[in-house]
């Protein structure tokens, strides 16, 4: 049995490993000159910047991705963050605990959860957010902005509840030692141990359908037959390769901006997330060099900040983000290494959290994985849930 994987992002490589383990002869096609998509490192001035992700796994080694990697025999060292997070509110830093919100707000949340569970009444999270205290309101914005690049009016309460439950169950983040690229490199090594192949600079030009099944992939000048095809490029782009639309709804992506900042001394001082509540745009920051100093040159630190894009004016969004950073980093000497925007066809998530349509397509041997077809969890842990589903089906 032969499988083709289109795209070598985290989803594509995880799928490749799952299929190779099941005995498939796997071939991965990547259009870019490197593997890993938006989950790998690019070196700049000896700093390990990333193509997208924040050198962080939302639920650390306990979460879906950590477990999937272990099940696949992929050895990546993930160091769970301690503390998991902190808030910066009214210029005051405080460690995050389970009792992050005041008792009254938590009770309101439980009451709403009960109403949803018993009566099935669903509503946008913003409706709940309107009725809570100022701190919780701002924390919710920072949490959603950092982890999902969305606002509370983008997500249904039921979908948020699932993410909340995952977070309560698996807890906060972890940092892969070596950054995102360490995960990608280990996945490639593992795939190659099964004789799976990765072809770089090979763009899939078309998927050929016959009798309601996908049959062939057209790469370079060759058409090759496969039993299963897994696409890591999202449903929209996959439809384009087939030449026929199968989705009934339009998928909306999430957009955001990431700032990579060089520091001479640590600002956060630990490997958890600093959620920023006093800002106009920046949702949070992390400083992964506190756990893996090799991600920056000797004696330097790498601070990464993220903001969702709340308007479509990128330059305006960046101006607000930079203003926030200036305020947050007052008194610190810093250099902005890179500002990376993710939108329009190269987004934070190909599908906004809570709007995923799943990994299946009308063709029973074609699947879509990656951030265009996540399960109900944050970022790469959501991707892992999609892959676990793939393993269950095939």
């Amino acid at each position, binding site marked *: 049995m032969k499988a083709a994987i289109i795209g070598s992002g985290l989803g594509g490589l995880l799928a490749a490993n799952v299929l190779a383990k099941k005995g498939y002869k796997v071939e991965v096609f990547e259009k870019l000159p490197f593997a890993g998509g938006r989950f790998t490192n690019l070196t*700049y001035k000896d700093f390990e910047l990333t*193509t997208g992700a924040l050198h962080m796994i939302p639920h650390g080694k306990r979460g879906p991705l950590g477990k999937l990697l272990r099940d696949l025999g992929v050895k990546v060292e993930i160091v769970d963050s301690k503390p998991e997070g902190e808030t910066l509110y009214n210029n005051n830093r405080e460690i995050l605990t389970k009792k992050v919100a005041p008792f009254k707000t938590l009770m309101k949340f439980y009451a709403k959860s009960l109403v949803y569970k018993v009566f099935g009444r669903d509503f946008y999270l913003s409706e709940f957010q309107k009725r809570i205290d100022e701190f919780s309101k701002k924390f919710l914005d920072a949490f959603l902005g950092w982890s999902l690049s969305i606002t509370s009016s983008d997500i249904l309460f039921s979908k948020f509840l699932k993410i909340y439950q995952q977070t309560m169950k698996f807890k906060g983040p972890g940092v892969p030692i070596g950054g995102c690229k360490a995960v990608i490199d280990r996945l490639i090594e593992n795939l190659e141990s099964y004789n799976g192949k990765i072809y770089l*600079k090979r763009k899939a030009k078309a998927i050929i359908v016959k009798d309601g099944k996908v049959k062939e992939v057209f790469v370079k000048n060759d058409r090759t037959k496969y039993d299963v095809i897994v696409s890591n490029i999202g449903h929209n782009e996959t439809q384009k390769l087939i030449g026929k639309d199968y989705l009934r709804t339009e998928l909306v992506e999430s957009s955001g901006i990431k700032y990579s900042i060089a520091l001479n001394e640590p600002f956060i001082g630990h490997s958890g997330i600093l959620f920023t509540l006093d800002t106009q745009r920046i949702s949070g920051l992390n400083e992964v060099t506190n756990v893996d100093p090799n991600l920056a040159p000797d004696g330097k630190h790498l601070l990464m900040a993220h903001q969702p894009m709340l308007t479509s004016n990128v330059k305006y969004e*960046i101006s607000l983000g930079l203003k926030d950073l200036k305020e947050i980093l007052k008194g610190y000497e810093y250099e902005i290494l890179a*500002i*990376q925007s993710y939108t329009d066809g*190269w987004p934070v998530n190909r599908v906004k959290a809570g709007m995923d349509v799943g990994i299946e397509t009308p063709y029973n041997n074609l699947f879509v994985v990656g951030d265009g077809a996540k399960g109900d969890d944050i970022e790469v842990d959501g991707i892992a849930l999609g892959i676990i589903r793939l393993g269950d089906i095939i």
Partner: protein
Amino acid sequence: MVTDSCVGCAFCKIVCKEFAIDVLGRAEVDREKCVECKLCVIYCPLEAIRVVE
């Protein structure tokens, strides 16, 4: 030449060995510093950079 498909992901800036590209929402190439090695062209995920003669 940077086309309208550029979203500003800055892969080009990061991989450019001449530090000839700056990105603020969109890539801008400094023609004085550019040596036309085309590294930015092959790294661009959206095929948004072209070399013009």
